[in-house]
Structure formats: C-alpha cells, structure tokens
C-alpha cells in the first residue's frame, strides 16, 4: 500500500492532478490520464529515484496500469 501511495504522489505531481483519488490500481497513465510519452518517461525516472531502482525501457514498455508498476517495484526492492 505504501508503494502505491508513493507512486500515486509521483504521478499526481508530474501530471498536476489535484484529486489523488482519480488514480487507482487500474489506472493507465497514458490512456486514462492523457500523459504523453515525455510524461511517462519523467514518471519512470522519478520512480527510479524514489525507490533507488533502475527500470529498463523493455520493462517499462510492459506496464499497462499502476498495478503493474507497483508489483514491479515490490519485486525489485524485495
């Protein structure tokens, strides 16, 4: 849950979303939040910094929603 909160905060910061509740585990950054590819890259880089991990492009391409990202981070920091 903590990871989800942190990811949510990063996304809201980047996309200037005020209502955090618009973002759920099933939200897709690109499709639901109208983020462009540059936004997506910035979100990934912020996540890398926050959790001190590296997310290769090949992995990032597979994310369809926030849940995928949260699971990925869980595995990486476990």
């Amino acid at each position: 849950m903590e990871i989800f909160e942190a990811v949510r905060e990063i996304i809201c910061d980047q996309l200037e979303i005020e209502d955090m509740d618009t973002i759920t585990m099933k939200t897709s950054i690109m499709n639901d939040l109208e983020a462009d590819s540059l936004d997506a890259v910035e979100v990934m880089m912020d996540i890398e910094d926050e959790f001190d991990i590296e997310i290769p492009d090949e992995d990032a391409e597979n994310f369809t929603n926030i849940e995928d990202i949260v699971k990925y981070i869980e595995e990486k920091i476990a």
Partner: protein
Amino acid sequence: MTLSKKNALITGGSRGIGRAIAMELSRQGINIIITYNSSEEKALEVIKEVENNGVKGLAIKADVSTEEDVKNMMKTIKNQFDSVDILVNNAGVTKDNLLLRMKTEEWDKVMDTNLKGVYLCTKAVARGMMKKRYGKIINIASVVGISGNAGQGNYSASKAGVIGFTKSIAKELGSRGITVNGVAPGFVETDMTEVLSEDIKKHSLNMIPLKRFGKPEDIANVVGFLCSEKADYITGQIINVDGGMLM
C-alpha cells in the same frame, strides 16, 4: 557578491567565443560555470573577471565528450549551485583536412567533442530543466554546417549534426518550457581561426558583405539575447552571425 537566481553552464568557456559569452551573461547578473580542457590558467582568469561583475563563478576541468567527465561535472555543479538554467554548448575543436588525407582519429575527435559533447551535456541538464519547467539551451553551430566547406568534412558534419539536434530537442522539450536554439558563427577571430593561412583569411574576407571578421562579442551578444526573456518565444532556430557571409 549578489544573489543571482540563474546559473549558466558554458562549455569551453576559457577562450574565444565561450569566454565572451561568460562575460556577457555575467553582465546580465547570471552566475557562470565554465568548463575547460587544457587552459586552466585562462579559465581561472575568466572566473576572476565574471566575479568582478558581481556573480558567482566556477571553472571545471572536463572533457565533454566523455560520459564520466560530464557526470563528475554535474556532481560538482550540484554541490555549489541549485540548478542549471542556461546551457551553452560551445566547446568545439577543428581538425581540418581534405577527405582523402583525413585520418579516422581526426574525424572521431571532432565528432566526439562537437556533437557527442552536445548530446551528453544537454542530456545531463535536461532533467533538472524539465522539473523546473524552465531552461534555455543554446548550441554554438557554424555556418559551415549549412554551407559546407572544403577541408572541413568532419567539422561541418558535426555542426550540421548540432543543427539537427537543436531542432529535434526543441520539439521534444518545448512543452516543458525549455527553448533550444543555435547560433551559427561565420568567421570569428579566435585561436581557432588564428592558425589559418593569410590566403584563406583574405578569401574569407572577400565573402563577407560587412567586410570584417566577427569578434567573439558579436556572437556573445546574440547568445545573451537568446538567454534573456526577450527571446522566450523563439525555439528551434539557428541564427547566423556572420556579417552576411551566408544568405
């Protein structure tokens, strides 16, 4: 020492055009960080002079074509400055030769410093600028990147590359409040052109409608304008500063 809000990183700032740019921006109250490769003494002189203009100054020894040096440079900058708001990619070298005589090392050296260096330094500062939603990147190209020049296959290719890069990155980063422009000098009196033969100089002068060579300050004035808020709506442009040599 005044507290200035903006910081500029100028690569190759110890001599010639880079030095003039450091002076010009410091007069605008912008803190100055310069990189130098070999001329440490001259770099420190520049820092002394910009500090006389009331801004902070820092000289860093760095080869902009190596990732390691650029990384270390950014670390040093982060320790002393909050951000890099302005980047002037100015560091450049020439290794002139006719194609048939050109050595691969001459080709590589010029491409590495003039083009790869621009890529590495721009990448290094881009993220900070994106976060701040502000940034001005000015790349020093050359008119020969547009016109071509016999004996400068490597140099003109690198500068044409810089022009293409300038336009691409202007498109990429525009939505983040970052402008990216190029200045293309013609024949400017610096150490780089000092070594050319009298014949070439005479021939070049004949090609310049304004009948004089450029001074480093002629270039610095335009860079100063592009760094100012007066140029906020200009991006992806290459401005020739060449006395009319190329039209």
